[in-house]
């Protein structure tokens, strides 16, 4: 199909060239405009895969296609790929290298060769959009974890990539910043950016994602829509994931005969609430 943006074919990658592989024959396809949750235990190869997607790591074997074209790992090709695939790293301190927020955000677009005047405007726009204004004058080392996260997302968003990879964006964030990050992610999707997000939050993934990819030992265990993936008890058990609360509650209500099993599986709490309201009326 034409709208496949990234395709991985039998990727194998090992950090130290012996028998332990971080990626062990990983194959998957990512379609344009989708919201994809990548889940799996620590060390299942999510971050390694992400680094492969931007060409930072070169798999020892296997092929990576971007828009149907095989990645050649030539410098020009890599730059082209990296201008289209943005990655927000898990620890902002590994990403922010400037002491000034403004300088930090301007780094990416200047690397793309955009002229300074336009970069200035882009940076201002993104500072406005991501609500960075209140702390834009602070040095990065004086920012809170959540603020650093906002800046690290701005870093990437300002480059206008086609696909954004977020590596556990909500890790170590307070609820307010988690909501903020989720809101930013929604904005990205509205702009038509494909979002690939690693997360351990099953409830969020269930509600948010169009598609869930489960990783296990450097391979894709299952890929599909959230209802299908999270209904598969066997698969969840293997990846140590709990089923989402909405789904579990719905099933339990069905077992008790309170709800009709023929109802479509609710996507979120709101739908489930509606179901329950409808029986009592």
């Amino acid at each position: 199909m034409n709208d496949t943006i990234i395709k991985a074919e039998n990727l194998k990658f090992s950090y130290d060239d012996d028998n332990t592989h971080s990626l062990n024959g990983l194959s998957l396809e990512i379609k344009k405009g989708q919201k994809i949750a990548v889940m799996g235990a620590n060390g299942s190869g999510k971050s390694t895969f992400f680094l492969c997607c931007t060409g930072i790591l070169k798999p020892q074997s296997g092929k990576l296609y971007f828009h149907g074209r095989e990645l050649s790992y030539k410098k020009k090709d890599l730059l082209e790929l990296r201008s289209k695939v943005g990655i927000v790293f898990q620890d902002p301190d590994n990403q922010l290298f400037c002491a000034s927020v403004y300088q930090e955000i301007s780094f990416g677009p200047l690397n793309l060769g955009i002229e300074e005047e336009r970069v200035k405007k882009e940076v201002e726009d993104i500072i406005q959009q991501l609500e960075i204004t209140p702390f834009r004058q602070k040095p990065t080392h004086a920012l809170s974890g959540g603020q650093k996260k906002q800046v690290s997302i701005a870093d990437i968003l300002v480059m206008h990539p086609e696909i954004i990879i977020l590596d556990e964006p909500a890790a170590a964030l307070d609820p307010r910043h988690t909501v903020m990050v989720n809101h930013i992610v929604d904005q990205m999707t509205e702009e038509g950016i494909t979002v690939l997000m690693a997360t351990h939050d099953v409830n969020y993934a269930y509600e948010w994602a169009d598609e869930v990819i489960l990783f296990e030992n450097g391979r894709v265990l299952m890929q599909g829509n959230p209802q299908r993936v999270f209904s598969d008890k066997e698969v969840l058990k293997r990846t140590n994931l709990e089923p989402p609360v909405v789904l579990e509650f719905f099933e339990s209500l069905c077992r008790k005969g309170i709800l009709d099993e023929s109802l479509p599986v609710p996507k979120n709490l709101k739908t489930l609430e509606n179901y329950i309201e409808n029986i009592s009326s």
Partner: protein
Amino acid sequence: MITIDKMCYHSKLRYENAGEKFAFAVITLLICVMSRSAAVAGIVLAVTGVLTVWKGGIPVARYVRFLTVPLAFLILSTAAIMFNIRRTPLDLFALPIGGWYLTASSHSFFYAVSLVLTALAAVSCLYFLSFTTPMPDILQVLRRLHCPKLMIEMMLLIYRFIFILLDTASAISTSQDCRMGNRDYKTSLKSFGMLGSVLMIRAVSRSGKLYDSMEARCYDGTIRVLSENHPPKKKVIAGIVCFELLLFSFAL
């Protein structure tokens, strides 16, 4: 040092044009060091002090305390210039020690005083710059002055990572304290060694990760960043030029 960094972001002079502040500090410093006169040093000390404290809004007590940091060092080193041990007494004073005298001449005394004042004034010039101008702004000025790119990039990265290194070190040392890692002299020596080695390993892995993340943003070997510009004010430039000319003619 960290205090200075914190304070400069809150200085009232922070948003003045960095070039102006840089020029003022450096030119004043040069005149002051070249003239070697106590009077010039006194004027410089007063002017930079007033600017940093009054215009910049740095608390007086803090500023004075920072000025005394090099003072102890200065007094110790000028003592050697001032005092002599010899068989004949000099004109200022003489303390007999056995057959010898601990003695000083008034000439060497005034020389020492002017030396201390000059050094303090020079330090106060640099304090003015560092109490009012954040590091990224200073780097921007250096960039304009065509400093080697590599040097500026190094400074940019080092400045950012000093804080990460300190954070990491303090987190590790806290965790060592929590597990009685600094119970006595022996354990604290051992803990300190471990802290050092862990910091080294962390620093290496962090620099690798940072490089990855920069590469992911199309880094090609040169760090290009934009700076926010605070346009220079004609009045301020005129003021600086007048002051420097006056100081220069006074020094002559």
